[in-house]
């Protein structure tokens, strides 16, 4: 399977992969006690082979917990995810061994049966708590907290997909990755609704740095027209996410934006405090004739105009096209003649990906054939 990972292994920044974000899983104390009880008692009461199995499960779960909490060792979000997966696998082994132990009526008797009964009770608790997430229909994943925060953009005048939303709040409140400024979190997402591939953020580039400088200028109180400064980044709306009424982050962001002359707070029972930018041309791609282009998939579409330049307000990269490309500050200049612009794929990587997909199909076919004809 290693060749299937080649496109990723040859391109990805592995160091960033394992260190980006924070690996710290807060273990629910009741669950931890139940898991420890189930593991320890199964190890004590189970027949030898089952006990060893439970032992491996306990070591796996404990090792997973260590990985999932290894922020202090420099581990990142992905390592944390691996750790939590190991915890789940380890717990499954312990629960399985525990249930199996209580069925070994001939081998387990006396005080060991009593201990096994307590172990099973703890295992039942673990299964029940896991099953409790099923009725919600989200398998324990967080609720869809952001739909209410962003859908209002579709009801505003104009095409929302020509603009972005600046989302700010506490570090734990934002969808996906976030960037930090002054201890608070922010990120840009697409309107009217962010795409799933926007969840992870790349390393900051020229446009991201320029945006951070702009945001710092606004935070420092050096302008009373934040909207004018945010418009070149395509920011038409600002949503302040908060979990409680006395959220210090939300209050600080409110103070930052409430004193701006060209940001209008939107009422109407929105889920979160929201401002709309009154400044002109708060769009993410703008032609020289003043046409705003809509964000479609990973590119932009708009009115074809021959001989008219188009400014694409994304990080400067020569792969934006079609047509001639020029760097405009941190953004891109290209042509509006085709009616669309996109990011030209890197051919070598694309071929690697296609080859990997082919190799995966070949492996699956070989596996099927091996079972079918062996």
């Amino acid at each position, binding site marked *: 399977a290693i060749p299937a990972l080649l496109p990723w292994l040859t391109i990805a920044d592995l160091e960033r992969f394992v260190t980006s974000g924070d690996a710290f899983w807060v273990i629910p104390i009741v669950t931890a006690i139940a898991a420890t009880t189930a*593991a320890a008692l199964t190890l004590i009461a189970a027949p030898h082979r089952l*006990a*060893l199995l439970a*032992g491996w499960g306990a070591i796996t779960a404990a090792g997973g917990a260590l990985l999932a909490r290894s*922020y202090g060792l420099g581990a990142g979000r992905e390592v944390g995810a691996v750790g939590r997966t190991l915890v789940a696998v380890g717990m499954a082994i312990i629960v399985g061994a525990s249930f199996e132990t209580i069925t070994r009526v001939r081998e387990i008797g006396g005080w060991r049966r009593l201990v096994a009964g307590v172990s099973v009770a703890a295992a039942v608790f673990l299964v029940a708590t896991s099953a409790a997430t099923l009725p919600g229909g989200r398998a324990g994943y967080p609720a869809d907290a952001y739909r209410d925060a962003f859908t209002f953009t579709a009801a505003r005048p104009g095409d929302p997909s020509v603009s972005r939303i600046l989302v700010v709040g506490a570090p734990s409140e934002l969808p996906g990755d976030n960037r930090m400024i002054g*201890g608070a979190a922010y990120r840009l997402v697409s309107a009217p609704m962010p795409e799933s591939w926007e969840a992870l953020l790349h390393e900051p580039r020229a446009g991201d740095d320029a945006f951070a400088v702009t945001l710092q200028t606004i935070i420092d*109180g050096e302008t009373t027209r934040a909207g004018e400064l945010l418009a070149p980044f395509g920011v038409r709306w600002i949503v302040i996410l908060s979990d409680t009424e006395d959220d210090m982050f939300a209050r600080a962001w409110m*103070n930052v934006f409430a004193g701006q*002359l060209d940001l209008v707070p939107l009422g109407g029972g929105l889920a979160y405090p929201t401002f709309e930018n009154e400044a002109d041309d708060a769009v993410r791609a703008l032609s020289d004739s003043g046409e705003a282009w809509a964000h479609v998939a990973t590119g932009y579409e708009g009115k074809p105009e021959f001989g008219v330049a188009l400014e694409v307000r994304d990080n400067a990269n020569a792969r934006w096209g079609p047509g001639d490309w020029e760097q405009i500050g941190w953004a891109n200049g290209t042509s509006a003649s085709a009616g669309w612009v996109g990011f030209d794929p890197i051919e070598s990587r694309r071929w690697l990906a296609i080859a990997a997909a082919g190799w995966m199909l070949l492996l699956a076919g070989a596996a099927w054939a091996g079972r079918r004809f062996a």
Partner: protein
Amino acid sequence: MRRALAIIVAAVVGLLAVSQIPPADVRAPDFEIPVSGIDGATGDPSAWYCSWAAAGALRDTAFNLASIIDVDATITLPNPNPTEEPALADFSLRGPGARSIDEGGIVRHGTQPGIIEFDDGPAVATTATWSEEILTGDRCVVSVPKEWHLAGGVTAEGFTLQLQLFNPFAEPAKVTIETISEFGRSTLSGFESRDVPGRSWVTEDLSRLIPFLDIVTLTIRSESGIVIPSFVLNDGTDEASWPATGQSTTWDFPVTSLPGLEPTLVLSNTGSVGATVSIDLFTPDGPILDADGRIISPLEPTRIHLADLAEPPFALRVRSNAPVGAIIQAAAPGAFPRSDDAPPGQSDSDSGDDEETTTTIAPDATDDAASDETVPEEEEVTPFTFTGLAAMPGNTDTHERWLVPGLGIVPGADTSIWVLNPTGDDATVTVEPLGVSSNNVEKVLIQPGRYAEIPIAPLSETGNSAVLIDATVPVSVAVSIAGPQGVAFIGGIGIG
């Protein structure tokens, strides 16, 4: 054996997991909106909020702009109907330079607060409003805190006090106003979570809401949004307006009175403990340090009749061990109610006699019959006096550079700059005119602990409507405008 080993390994790894240190728990961001000093300007783009201005059939207002460097300025005048677009006017200033913009030339809507935005700085703004009967002016406000203090209100008989709440931002504001008067502290009726619509203003007649109060201090807190408050006081002869401020432990007043006017100082303390206040006077003969000292209790705003301490004119500094609010007000003698303790050996009736005598200095100050009897005798003492009402919050800081706009712009009125040198060193003050010409730079030497009045020629003669003051030591600056319409004091704006 293997069981024990598994238990030990799992336990050790589990303990290691439990002992891991979590990321720092960040409970609040490390930024907040910086609040500029009320009398300072920075080198950044800025917006100045002029809460009290009016241009109509009877009144004219000038927005007075000055800048050190080339700047573009935009004046925004919100429409009285918030749903309609505001009036906008763009101007350029070649720095160092100054302009005085007639509000009526942009729009005449009557009472009409404005916003002046500069795209760079240091640049500053003040207003002057006048008619045939009144003259007033304010330093516009550049800071926008959530809590304001407005001291010096009077709703006693003969006074009309208005509260102006200007919300220049789009977000509706919700404010709660607390009143501190001689009767204690209370929430202003009708102003518990009072809404002030965005890009709009509310003018409330406090004389009808809380009548017959000799001294009123307001604390205005914004629960949401931001407002710019100011007081507008009318005593039947003139109008005075002044913006809300914060509180400070030091207040400088380079000007406290003009001939014919009696200065009073209003002190208020909205803290929880008493503030020990000392008053230093800076007279033409030298400083009188600790001319008065008293404790200002939290619920007892105090008016001090400064003429009881020394013969005006003089400049003044207030020092306190806790933040207090301070306003200077000058009016015809006897105009303001007496609520402070008279100095030893002087009764209220004594001071009343003094007021009568002093009042007669101004030929037009009063129609009191008793005054008329002494007119011939007093005219020999003071050849020229002013009538009217002026008020001004002090300067909280001294600076070596000041931008002073709005000079010589009111027709028929005299304008003076007042410079206080509160230091122990000589101050050499360079006064550079700004406007059409920067020639005729003047240098003034001010001895330690003294002040100087620098008369300014009318704009119509010089083409200059501002000065840049550069001093060798930190000084404090204010402006007086006095004419047949009335009098106005305007605090200076330091730039470094």
